[in-house]
């Protein structure tokens, strides 16, 4: 084990995959010379050269579209979008092209492309640089959606994403980039669709994504002191979703709380709640709960921003209420 910054774990995953497979390349804004806006590709331009580590103009639809074309013709591109909000600038290429080409072609074609992009609030980046688009992306058939938690998870899941033969939207939480984590010396690819039970418990199941996994773990440690035993599931991937892991856990605990940072309306909590209801209804001792970002745009001022996004305190309050 060793200590590592989250952003360096991302960089290692890219580096190792580029070293392993010379068809892997990356294109994006500011990824080359300065090593990425969030420093996730430092040193890779020098190591792999301009053709494989391509600084692009500010043309999100263009670079995602080029990624689709590269993927159709034998490369395995990683396209970095500097903020996940920019997925909407490139939405046609993501949703109408990348996600649907395998289907529309009757299985003739595959699009092995990863779109890496930072998500989430907490930096006073306001309404156009703070969104969490995972629920929206998961809505469209044909995209895999990854929401890693720790540096170890991010590295292992990114390796899997790069090796996957489908378009993968890989969300990195921007509040984690500068955080330190312990990581294995060698990180193997982590399979998609297999949730990780990061804490076992008997009273309530929390299904969490991305940074909310760490917040849920903090909350669980505090709740233990109040005699509440929390099971925490790191969902890892929203598409594909490991519903069996959720169902098994909820049958044991009798309670389910979903914590995800996307907006509440039509969000991950609503989806998971409805998806597992048929299987867990008669085991539930409380209504399914959800913590999400309310349906307001992300505000600029920290005085407004922090109160609306999910937090350890909110999780504790919600769990206690569900235990009443």
């Amino acid at each position: 084990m060793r200590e590592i910054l989250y952003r360096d774990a991302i960089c290692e995953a890219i580096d190792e995959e580029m070293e392993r497979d010379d068809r892997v390349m990356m294109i994006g804004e500011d990824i080359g010379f300065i090593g990425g806006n969030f420093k996730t590709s430092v040193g890779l331009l020098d190591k792999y050269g301009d053709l494989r580590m391509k600084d692009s103009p500010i043309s999100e639809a263009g670079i995602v579209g080029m990624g689709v074309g590269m993927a159709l013709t034998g490369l395995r591109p990683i396209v970095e979008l500097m903020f996940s909000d920019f997925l909407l600038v490139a939405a046609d290429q993501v949703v109408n092209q990348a996600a649907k080409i395998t289907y529309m072609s009757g299985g003739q074609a595959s699009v092995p492309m990863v779109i890496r992009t930072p998500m989430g609030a907490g930096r006073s980046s306001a309404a156009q640089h703070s969104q969490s688009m995972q629920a929206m992306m998961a809505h469209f058939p044909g995209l895999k959606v990854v929401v890693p938690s720790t540096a170890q998870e991010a590295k292992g899941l990114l390796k899997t994403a790069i090796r996957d033969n489908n378009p993968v939207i890989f969300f990195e939480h921007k509040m984690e980039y500068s955080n330190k984590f312990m990581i294995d010396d060698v990180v193997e690819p982590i399979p998609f669709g297999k949730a990780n039970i990061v804490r076992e418990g008997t009273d309530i199941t929390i299904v969490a994504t991305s940074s909310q996994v760490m917040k849920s773990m903090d909350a669980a440690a505090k709740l233990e002191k109040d005699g509440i035993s929390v099971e925490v599931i790191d969902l890892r991937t929203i598409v594909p979703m490991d519903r069996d892991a959720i169902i098994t856990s909820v049958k044991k605990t009798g309670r389910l709380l979903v914590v995800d940072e996307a907006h509440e309306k039509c969000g991950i909590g609503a989806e998971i709640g409805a998806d597992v209801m048929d299987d867990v209804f008669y085991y539930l001792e409380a209504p399914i709960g959800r913590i999400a970002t309310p349906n307001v745009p992300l505000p600029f001022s920290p005085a407004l921003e922090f109160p609306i996004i999910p937090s350890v305190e909110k999780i504790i309050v919600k769990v206690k209420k569900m235990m009443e």
Partner: protein
Amino acid sequence: MDKKYSKEQLIGFYETMYRMRRFEEEVFEFYKKGMMPGLAHLYLGEEAIATGVCAALTENDYIGSTHRGHGHLVARGAELGKMMAEILGKEGGYSRGKGGSMHIMALDKGILGANGIVGGEIPIATGAAYTAKYLGTDQIAVSFFGESASNEGTFHESLNMAAAWDLPIVYVIENNLYGISVDIRDVTKTIDIADRAKAYGIPGIIVDGMDVIAVHQAAEEAVKRARSGNGPTLMECKTYRWQGHHVGDPAVYRERRDPNEKASWQERCPVDCFKDKMIEQKKISEKEFKKLEDEIEAQVQTAVKFAIDSPYPDPSEAYTDIFA
């Protein structure tokens, strides 16, 4: 100007154009008889362009196509029966009925797909050109699109990147004057779209899109430029579509400016005029034309029969090919 062409080449031009013509006429018949689900956008009148351009390519090159894509596919040698079956939504189609007229793909012919989004395919074809440069092959890509796609952002983004990086690609505009009902002259100051090439620092050329020889000669130059590493060319072919935007569009909007507009373009029919000229110049005899047309008629009728006889896909097929 025809001296450089062998008889085989001239016959080849006519064969391809006539095959497109008869194919599209049969598609129109399907529509009129109520046999076709949805719609199709016919290539009638524009045959010289795909024929001339694709004759300048090798079998390893790539093309990106559009909603008006049947002609491009025929020019690349796609199988008529599988195309026709796809247009009817049948199991025997290229995508087993999942794509339809606007999404026919034949990767084995280098066809990256027709595309239902105007301008959607331009960056995808550009990505294919990037792959060729990346892998160091001598392949090139051709991106076909209409004049109205040149007002989409992807046109600008793609041409800018292809020019900046000297990508091996030829952008072929089929300027048929109308984006559905809107006359390009009413919404665009630049009458010759080729003029926009100056803004990207690449050659822009205007070609008579009704003359297969003119198209082929221009395409050969542009292809040579791309293949030798000198970057993209914007090639604008002036043309006209015989029918409305799609089958069933009466195209009343075309009478506004000039009641004789359609008739004057039809006098320059790329298929008939080429044939007349060849007979007049004694390059190909009427008898030879008749033989060729009979052969093509048989091919087209075989394709029609194949499509009609092909069963519809099983409803369970809707749930396959979502992921590779």
